[in-house]
């Protein structure tokens, strides 16, 4: 034994010191143990017998010795070490000096309880060792690093439901109800301007000779709310006639009507055609 009585209980991760070091080390590594119970279990392990047959008295004595030597080197001990020491000192006295009324049942119970706690700690320590010895995922064995995604997303379907349809409808109604301010309905008739543009454009590709004014009416009238087709049709006819008269006045075409209220015909001005042809020939 070292003169100063220091002992070195190694912390779990520490390397074992050499002999000389052992006897000169002034520090007691009690914090290498995970608390007083851990030290008690370690002491029990040192007895190298079945935990069930271990001598609690020996264990208590050993613990008290360790704590005493720790105090001799003035190591600061956490309160729980001292609490355990006090309790074990009490236990030891009761075990050593049974009362005159026979065996001290209180001490026997306490010793049994301590034994049970040590056994449970030993079991859990064994379980931890068993777990540690297993191949651990991410340390000893590895799973597939990247899962293969065998999923196909089908975007062909439509997610439709009636509430959606209703919300859309309500949104439209709310919006237009908010926006709608009174204004007279604008009826988009086929205007003289429209007809002029159309007539001028069509004249170039019209075959020589008379053709009906009707054929210069637009195929599709501008979008309109007017449901009275006849009215829109009449307006288009009037517009086209006025445009025709305008162009006839400027000599670009000729108009004729064989009888009152009869069909109206028009043809491009021949002179213009000739000019055009002459132009092409040059």
């Amino acid at each position, binding site marked *: 034994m070292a003169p100063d009585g220091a002992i070195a209980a190694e912390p779990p991760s520490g390397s074992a010191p050499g002999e000389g070091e052992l006897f000169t080390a002034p520090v007691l590594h009690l914090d290498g143990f995970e608390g007083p119970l851990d030290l008690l279990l370690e002491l029990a392990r040192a007895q190298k017998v079945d935990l069930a047959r271990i001598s609690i008295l020996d264990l208590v004595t050993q613990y008290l010795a360790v704590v005493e030597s720790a105090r001799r080197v003035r190591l600061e001990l956490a309160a729980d070490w001292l609490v355990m020491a006090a309790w074990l000192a009490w236990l030891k006295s009761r075990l050593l000096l049974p009362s005159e009324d026979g065996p001290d049942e209180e001490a026997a119970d306490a010793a049994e309880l301590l034994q049970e706690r040590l056994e449970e700690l030993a079991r859990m320590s064994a379980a931890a060792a068993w777990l540690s010895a297993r191949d651990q995922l991410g340390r000893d064995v590895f799973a597939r690093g990247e899962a293969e995604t065998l999923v196909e997303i089908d975007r062909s*379907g439509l997610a439709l439901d009636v509430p959606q349809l209703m919300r859309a409808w*309500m949104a*439209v109604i*709310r919006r237009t109800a908010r926006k709608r301010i009174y204004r007279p309905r604008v009826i988009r008739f086929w205007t003289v301007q429209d007809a002029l543009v159309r007539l001028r454009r069509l004249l170039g590709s019209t075959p020589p000779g008379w053709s009906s004014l009707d054929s210069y009416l637009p195929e599709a009238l501008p*979008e309109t709310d007017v449901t009275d087709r006849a009215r829109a049709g009449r307006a288009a006819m009037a517009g086209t006639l006025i445009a025709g008269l305008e162009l006839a006045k400027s000599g670009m075409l000729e108009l004729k009507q064989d009888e009152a209220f009869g069909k109206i015909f028009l043809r491009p001005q021949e002179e213009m055609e000739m000019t055009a042809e002459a132009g092409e020939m040059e």
Partner: protein
Amino acid sequence: MTDITQDIWPSDQVVRLVEAMIFSASAPVSAKAILSLLENQDLVPDGVEDLDTCLRAVFDALQTRYAGRGVLPSEVAGGWQFRTAPDLAPLLTKVLPRPRRLARAAMETLAIIAYHQPCTRAEIEDIRGVSLGQNVLDTLIEESLIAPRGRKEVPGRPVLWGTTADFLRHFGLKGLGDLPRREELMTELPEALPRTEEAQAETADLLASEAQAGEEDA
């Protein structure tokens, strides 16, 4: 391990290691990474010049091992990776239907057609208060939600649109009569809404005609 001669390359241990490495990596493993692993472990035969051929042999050995199996080592962008055998992939592939939603404009247009059918494009625009992109109608036609229902006999003879049987199927409706009626929806319009005389008058008209229609149905 350094005395492996070229003729017995790759050793079983090399193939196993590469197999495990490709398996456990979170991305395709590059030839460079494999080579560096093998070199670190001193598993590359001494005096080998042509490392590419060496690696090729490892890959070939791995492919031989997995020939005809459920998974195969394959070369993908950036390296090697295990992949499900092509003939098995379709059996394992889970198809997740992720239905699309209709865009707002399309949904609103569909709602208008549902309530006003048959109606023209111009009428839809008038109700929505904005002009309609051609693609909106195209989408609805492609999905067979709407179809032409003749032409309106006005100048220009615009196409009239109506909903289809597919429309009913998509919305789980037995018939158009299953849709909430317009006046039922109108009651939910917030009172505070600044409605104009005209809008009110129109609503009244609509309700009146709906009521008539309802009576005719009955």
